[in-house]
């Protein structure tokens, strides 16, 4: 019996090693096939299919829904004025769910195998972008995110030509944030709490490095996105801390953190959020709250129209997903001029995107550099005045 068990274990071990060896041997082929991927010709037809990857459900659904609403807002406006229609194929990524990025990867695989899908809007989270790159790139699909800001997404070269984003990277946000903290707020002691996601950790690392370079004393901690009780961590924040920085994605969590700070006698400490917390839930905490937000023309008539059609909520976090949908649709339109297109053609057309200031909603022209980033602009800095964010830098 013992011999049989040993033999079985050895056989299993051999099988694992063989699989690993086969997988590593296949890797270079996979990479080369990715560059040729998406060469199958698709009839564009009257309705063009675009994948929409967002956290429809799960812990980050509160911001995912903003993106879905804005993307659909674009779709409805486009379909009203064009003979050829667009339609989204929805894939729920469940950002922040307990099974990690598994749902996002499943969604990416489903979109990849749907031959009619010509491009993808999303995914939302930087960690999701990293996880789905293999599946989307392998299928030759271009993916344009309206919120994944982790700097390395466009600098590590892994997804160049396939991945684009309509928000500036964290390297831009961290510069604006740290400069405001040091030059305007003149803080000397900062406490940074990340939320352990790729977006948050990357941004926190960059801000921490920039602040330290300016001789600011920085303490660092982390919480889980699924956490609601922050009292234990708030107890650790020294009372002479001047500012707590929260590069988080979930506004209700930011609100809970701020409320618990007040409860624990730390309501006087300034609180600063990142673009993920740019929401009335966070600004409503009081005048000690600051935030940074990606470039956006909030006076654009479309923001007012969106607000009107969504119960008075502007859900601004989702606005860059409108632009992402606009970018993908524009590229598909150009690629489909002769009635047929390939995913590779759509990718080529994305690179030629040139949306003017007037029509981009971001308040800046949308053009991509060789790495997939838009023309860089500093993030705006906002201060909460009577519960509403007012731009101060």
């Amino acid at each position: 019996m013992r011999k049989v068990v040993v033999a079985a274990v050895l056989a299993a071990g051999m099988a694992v090693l063989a699989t690993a060896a086969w997988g590593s041997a296949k890797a270079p082929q996979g990479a080369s096939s990715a560059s040729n991927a998406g060469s199958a010709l698709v009839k564009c037809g009257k309705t063009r299919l675009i994948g929409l990857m967002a956290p429809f459900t799960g812990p980050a659904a509160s911001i995912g829904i903003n993106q879905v609403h804005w993307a659909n807002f674009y779709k409805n406006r486009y379909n009203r004025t064009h003979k050829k229609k667009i339609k989204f194929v929805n894939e729920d990524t469940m950002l922040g769910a307990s099974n990690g990025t598994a749902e996002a990867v499943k969604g990416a695989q489903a979109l990849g195998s749907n031959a009619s899908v010509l491009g993808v809007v999303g995914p939302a989270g930087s960690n999701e972008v990293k996880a789905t790159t293999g599946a989307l790139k392998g299928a030759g699909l271009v993916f344009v995110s309206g919120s994944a800001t982790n700097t390395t997404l466009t600098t590590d070269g892994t997804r160049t030509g396939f991945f684009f984003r309509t928000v500036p990277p964290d390297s831009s946000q961290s510069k604006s944030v740290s400069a405001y903290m040091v030059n305007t707020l003149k803080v000397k002691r900062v406490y940074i709490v990340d939320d352990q996601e790729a977006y948050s950790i990357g941004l926190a690392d960059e801000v921490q490095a920039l602040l330290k370079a300016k001789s600011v004393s920085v303490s660092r901690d982390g919480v889980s996105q699924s956490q609601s009780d922050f009292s234990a961590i708030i107890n650790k924040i020294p009372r002479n801390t001047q500012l707590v920085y929260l590069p988080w994605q979930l506004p209700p969590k930011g609100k809970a953190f701020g409320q618990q700070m007040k409860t624990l006698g730390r309501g006087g400490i300034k609180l600063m959020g990142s673009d993920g917390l740019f929401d009335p839930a966070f600004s409503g905490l009081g005048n000690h709250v600051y935030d940074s937000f990606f470039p956006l023309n909030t006076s654009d008539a479309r923001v007012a129209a969106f607000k009107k059609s969504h119960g008075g909520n502007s859900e601004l976090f989702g606005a860059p997903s409108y632009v992402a949908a606009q970018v993908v649709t524009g590229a598909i339109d150009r690629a489909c001029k002769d009635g047929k297109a390939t995913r590779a053609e759509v990718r080529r057309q994305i690179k030629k995107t040139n949306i003017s200031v007037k029509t981009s909603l971001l308040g800046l022209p949308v053009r991509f550099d060789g790495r997939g980033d838009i023309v860089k602009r500093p993030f705006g800095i906002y201060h909460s005045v009577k519960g509403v964010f007012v731009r101060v830098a």
Partner: protein
Amino acid sequence: MDWSLFFGELVSGLTLGSIYALIALGYTMVYGILKLLNFAHGDVYMVGAFVAFFVLQWLGGPLSPAVTGWLAIAIMFAVAMLACGALGVGIERFAYRPLRNAPRIAPLISALGVSIFLQNSALLLWGPQFRDYNTFDLIGVKSYSIGKNFFISNVQILTIAASIGLMIVLTLLVSRTRAGKAMRATSFDREAAEMMGISVDRVISFTFFVGSALAAAGGVMFGIVFGQIFSLMGFTAGLKGFTAAVVGGIGSIPGAMLGGFLIGLTEAFSTGYLPGGSTYANLYVFALLIAMFLIRPSGLLGSPVIRKV
């Protein structure tokens, strides 16, 4: 020694522990009687939090409640506990009772199914977004300072006091009433209890009612103290409640309370004092569970099972 930090973590741990203890009580009561791990219990806790939220909306919302803030909270507790008690009875009747004589794996899988059903129903009915109790507006959260650097809020005092009160009531119910005696008898030997004229079905239903009502109270407390509730909040809380029940000794009511406070304090103090504590708080909590299994498998106050061999 930073006493300010120590006191802060102590209060945080006791607050969190109070909620875990209430959840653990439901696990331990059901296990004590049916030897069933009711994995849907954490989701009953979530439903309780939502019921109270909708009661608050029905009362006019936190900004303009039709009654005073404290009365609104009392009504929220009462309705949520009654509704979840009824839900618990329903779950037992339809998901567990038909499987009572089936192999033990069957009700366990049924419990997981009920858990997933409740989670997804909540997502479908109430959406994925966070709901806010707005306790600050409802009752005006106040902090009391003891000395210069020790702070405790009125909602923390309410949570700790209310959960201790509920635990005392439960202890009296189990030890001093006929229903409690029937519960103890059923737990000791179900068949013998039945032969002595105890309606075992009714006792089991009552146990589910009480356990689920306590979980609902925990859910409402969570909403009041931490401000927000969401559809998936029951999963982690349920796991922690289960851990508390095991650490305290599953089947033991005082053990569940002790386990709840121990888990809450472990979480708070590991966050405050251990390296990477806030990031790895759950690691420390579940390490405690593993350690308990290795050192004392029956838990702190549990009694070892003696089997005839």
